[in-house]
């Protein structure tokens, strides 16, 4: 890769830290971990079944939603507390496409992604000059408005009850298996697409403009382009998550997409260290979906135990050596 000869005679001596592995080597290890993890996840329904398999399907869809929040943090340096809205957009697109057009998931999923892109741009354009806490609060406004909006248009949205997603996406495969494997496949595809994206010129331009806006602008990268692109992509990923969430849980309703949902997506993203890797995303998804269930027997203690678990995971992950954290975060070439 870097076999070009040195330019200057007697180049300046530099001693890179031998303990730090090269970028490509780091990928090799994380690729192996990801592939092993995927094989385990793919084999799970063969050994287990029932409720846990259903919950894991939901968990994978949540993991994609967490990736959408992490994408925004990693590439735009911005935090969203309203991503539940984009997830809801994907979920309702699938449900409405089934209700009115009898479209199954494989047809409505691309439609949901397109709706996500459009919504992301519609939100990003007026807010393109906002940053930090101001943008976060603007996203929160979206999340607050959504349930009311869905109830107002209850004729279309199904009101409190919501809508059902019943059509099979794959003929000849049992419902339970479809609701497990399709979100898992979606998660793997999104992770692979994001991994490829990291090497693209667009990703490099976005990363530079995030850390050094003046420098990026001097090389032709526009700030408004960067914001709109990040928001559109992040929102498309969220909408894909929503589409698979509605399919795996077979129902969509306003109380699945409250402000709390959006806040927990951010919590999941923090728990995963804003990771764009399969392992990180599943870790965030597990925390979001399974930990409340595991604690369910604790009654009034649930919020306290959940808070404690959250603290333990965040502090624990941050205490990891830098190399392990970098590996977990993934998304590097």
């Amino acid at each position, binding site marked *: 890769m870097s076999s070009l000869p040195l*330019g*200057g005679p007697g180049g300046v001596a530099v001693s890179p830290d031998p303990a730090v592995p090269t970028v490509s080597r780091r990928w090799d290890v994380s690729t192996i971990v990801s592939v092993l993890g995927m094989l385990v996840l793919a084999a799970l329904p063969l050994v287990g079944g029932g409720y846990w398999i259903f919950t894991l399907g939901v968990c994978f869809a949540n993991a994609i939603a967490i990736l959408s929040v992490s994408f925004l943090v990693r590439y735009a340096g911005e935090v969203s507390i309203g991503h539940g809205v984009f997830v809801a957009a994907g979920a309702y697109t699938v449900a409405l496409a089934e209700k009115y057009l009898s479209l199954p998931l494989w047809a409505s999923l691309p439609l949901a992604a397109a709706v996500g892109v459009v919504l992301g741009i519609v939100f990003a354009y007026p807010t393109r000059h906002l940053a930090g806490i101001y943008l976060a609060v603007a996203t929160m406004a979206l999340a607050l408005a959504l349930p009311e909006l869905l109830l107002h248009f209850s004729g279309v949205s199904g009101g409190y009850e919501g809508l059902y997603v019943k059509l099979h996406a794959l003929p000849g495969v049992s419902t339970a298996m479809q609701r497990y494997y399709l979100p898992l496949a979606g998660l793997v595809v999104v992770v692979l697409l994001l991994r490829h*994206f990291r090497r*693209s010129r667009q990703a490099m331009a976005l990363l530079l403009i995030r*850390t050094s806006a003046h*420098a990026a602008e001097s*090389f*032709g990268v526009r700030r408004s382009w960067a914001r709109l692109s990040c928001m559109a992509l992040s929102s498309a990923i969220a909408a894909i998550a929503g589409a698979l969430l509605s399919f795996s849980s077979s129902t969509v309703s306003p109380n699945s997409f409250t402000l709390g949902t959006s806040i927990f997506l951010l919590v999941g993203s923090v728990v995963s260290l804003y990771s764009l890797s399969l392992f990180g995303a599943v870790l965030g998804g597990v925390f979001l979906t399974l930990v409340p269930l595991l604690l369910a027997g604790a009654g009034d203690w649930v919020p306290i135990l959940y808070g404690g678990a959250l603290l333990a995971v965040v502090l624990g992950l941050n205490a990891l050596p830098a190399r392990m954290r970098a590996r977990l975060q993934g998304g590097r*070439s």
Partner: protein
Amino acid sequence: MSAGAGVLNAPLTVQGLGLSFGGIQVLQDIALRLEPGEITGLIGPNGAGKTSLFNCLTGLYVPQAGNIRLGDLSLDGLAPPGRSALGFSRSFQHVALCPELSVVENVMVGLDRQSSAGWLAAFLPLPRGRLERLRNRGLAMTALSRLGIARLADEAPQQLPPGMLRLAEIARAIAGTPRVLLLDEPAAGLNAAETRELSAAVARLRSPQLVLVIVEHDMDLIMEVCDTIHVLNVGRVLASGRPQAIRDNADVVRVYLGGDDE
């Protein structure tokens, strides 16, 4: 790439340029003619307005008076990305590399304006995107080689000393074969040996189409590589001329050379 025929081999001219921040006059009535094929030095004591002038040239600052032209083309109201499209390129006084990108990836951003791979190629392994990425990597490696740091291509910027980061920044600025190249204190943080190498590398950048301007405190480097030197002092041009004439100019010696340089 996208520059019109009117700006090929064109000089960069500055006329009556004035810039102020909240009543403080930073630049006043600056008139310069920066010729292609020459290396122009811009010197002056701290606070003389050198970096402000650079920022006006690249469009980061909008001057209140005067104009800047590339050949026949007025650059009024043209933002940095627009000037980049005309072939403007620069390095920064404070190193502005992205820590999440490797050195060669940082340099590849300098080629972004000449790249056309779309969003589909960004997400899918299409041959077109792969070829462009390989081509850009090759061009970035060439730029790194010209500065003698090709071996650092896959390092992360955090692992490198400041001098190397500065060379990487210059590599990014030259990777896209710019028409106007502005180097802001390229030798800051370099040791004597590194500065000598940089000096040789800068001299090699000279080309008949390139307007090359350097802001620098290292007088040896400036005197060695520059054809023309402009001296700024408190926002005005104090003197302009060949290196020897500047060295002998009594005003310059008084305000600048006498104070800072032996």
